[in-house]
């Protein structure tokens, strides 16, 4: 599999991914991530599993809209930006049995040899009732994922605990279990907020883990009081 040449600029807060495609090379990209590209690059929308499956997943709150970008006839450059300001990280899957588990909102791009499994049952319960879910990436090729805030790589050796809202990706050589730490829960304190259940993921084994330095729930909770209220104000 040809590797895709790339550069990541403006790390860690405003990272942008540049893919330098060779002639007739294709990249699979999260819909909406394309910021700019050479004029001869062709884009084709690719709905994983066909239209009906995609609609079904969208209704279930799980959708991953992908596009294929191909540099037709000559090399071309593709500028990709994630939706929130943050970092971008590259990972190479070597075609063995290992896979990378990535938070769905963090997927940016991958080479065609990478298979993305969005029906990954092992990750149920990571996020309480939100439309965020985990994707299992396997196969052979490059994958790029993004974060809100900076990405920190943590090599896990034995055991490590991460708040589920801050997980970006992890190698599946790690076993994991989602738990609620009551000492972190704000539920009992009578406040209505997003998140705050004290959900953490306990990782065990040996492997790499990537976390982000900001979390969207905290921003949402800050913005919530500023929303207009339905009753006349």
């Amino acid at each position, binding site marked *: 599999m040809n590797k895709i040449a790339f550069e990541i600029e403006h790390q860690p807060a405003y990272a942008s991914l540049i893919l330098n495609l060779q002639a007739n090379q294709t990249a699979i990209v999260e819909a909406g991530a394309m910021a700019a590209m050479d004029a001869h690059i062709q884009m084709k929308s690719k709905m994983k599993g066909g239209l009906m499956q995609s609609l079904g997943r969208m209704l279930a709150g799980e959708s991953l809209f992908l596009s294929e970008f191909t540099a037709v006839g000559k090399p071309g450059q593709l500028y990709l930006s994630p939706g929130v300001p943050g970092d971008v990280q590259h990972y190479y899957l070597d075609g063995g049995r290992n896979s990378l588990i990535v938070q769905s909102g963090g997927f940016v791009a991958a080479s065609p040899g990478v298979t993305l499994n969005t029906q990954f049952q092992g990750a149920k319960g990571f996020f309480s009732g939100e439309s965020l879910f985990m994707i299992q990436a396997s196969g052979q090729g490059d994958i790029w994922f993004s974060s809100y805030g900076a990405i920190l790589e943590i090599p896990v050796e034995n055991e*490590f605990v991460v708040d589920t809202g801050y997980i970006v990706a992890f190698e599946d050589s790690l076993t994991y279990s989602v738990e609620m730490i009551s000492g972190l829960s*704000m539920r009992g304190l009578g406040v209505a907020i997003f998140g705050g259940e004290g959900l953490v993921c306990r990782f065990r084994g040996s492997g790499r883990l990537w976390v982000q330095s900001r*979390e969207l729930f905290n921003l949402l909770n800050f913005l919530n009081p500023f929303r207009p209220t339905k009753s006349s104000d």
Partner: protein
Amino acid sequence: MEIQLLQQPDSAIAKVLLERDEEIVAEAGSMVAMSSHIGANTTLKQGKGGGLLGGLKRMLGGESLFLSVYRALSKPGEVYLAPDFMGDIVVYPMAGQELVVQSGSYLASAPSVHIDLGFLGFKQALLSGESLFWLTISGYGELLLSSFGAIYAVEVDGEYIVDTGHIVAFERSLTFDTGKPPGSNWLSAFLGGEGFICRFKGRGTVYCQTHNPGAFGQLVGSKLPPR
């Protein structure tokens, strides 16, 4: 404890290395990741002023501070703490003096640092009906402050004016006075988007942030669906 600040200045995150049985107090919800043997406990610290707000059922932003205490049980451990906004973190060593800190800028502190919510120096409603409230910090030990945007220190010697939404913290050695910007009337100040200003006098440091959370909240929040 040892505190390392990583990924500065825009997405700063604090890595706190705790000795065995050492504790750190932090704003609830700021824990990103931690060693598996760290014990956690969350409580609510309430302000004395009932004021304009009332009741625990308000969204976070009222006069209450949710704090979590992290303790390294039986062996050293680490805790990663992150603020809410894109911005920076500063470690301020408390050594007996008093610091007034904007509630949203408090990130974490050593247990020997005392946090008081009773600062009634100034309190005003932002356009949304939320109020900015202030903590009085005293005692000894590390204090972690976070900012919205970049953080910079102004050494005041004489007089200085800062828009209250841009204040992260200030030393109590300064006297302060709140009001409207000089030369403005209430209407022009309101339309001009300027909020209350704080006039500092004397000698001391004011920590400022380049961006104003209230202004950002008002701009973005007012465009979101009603609640």
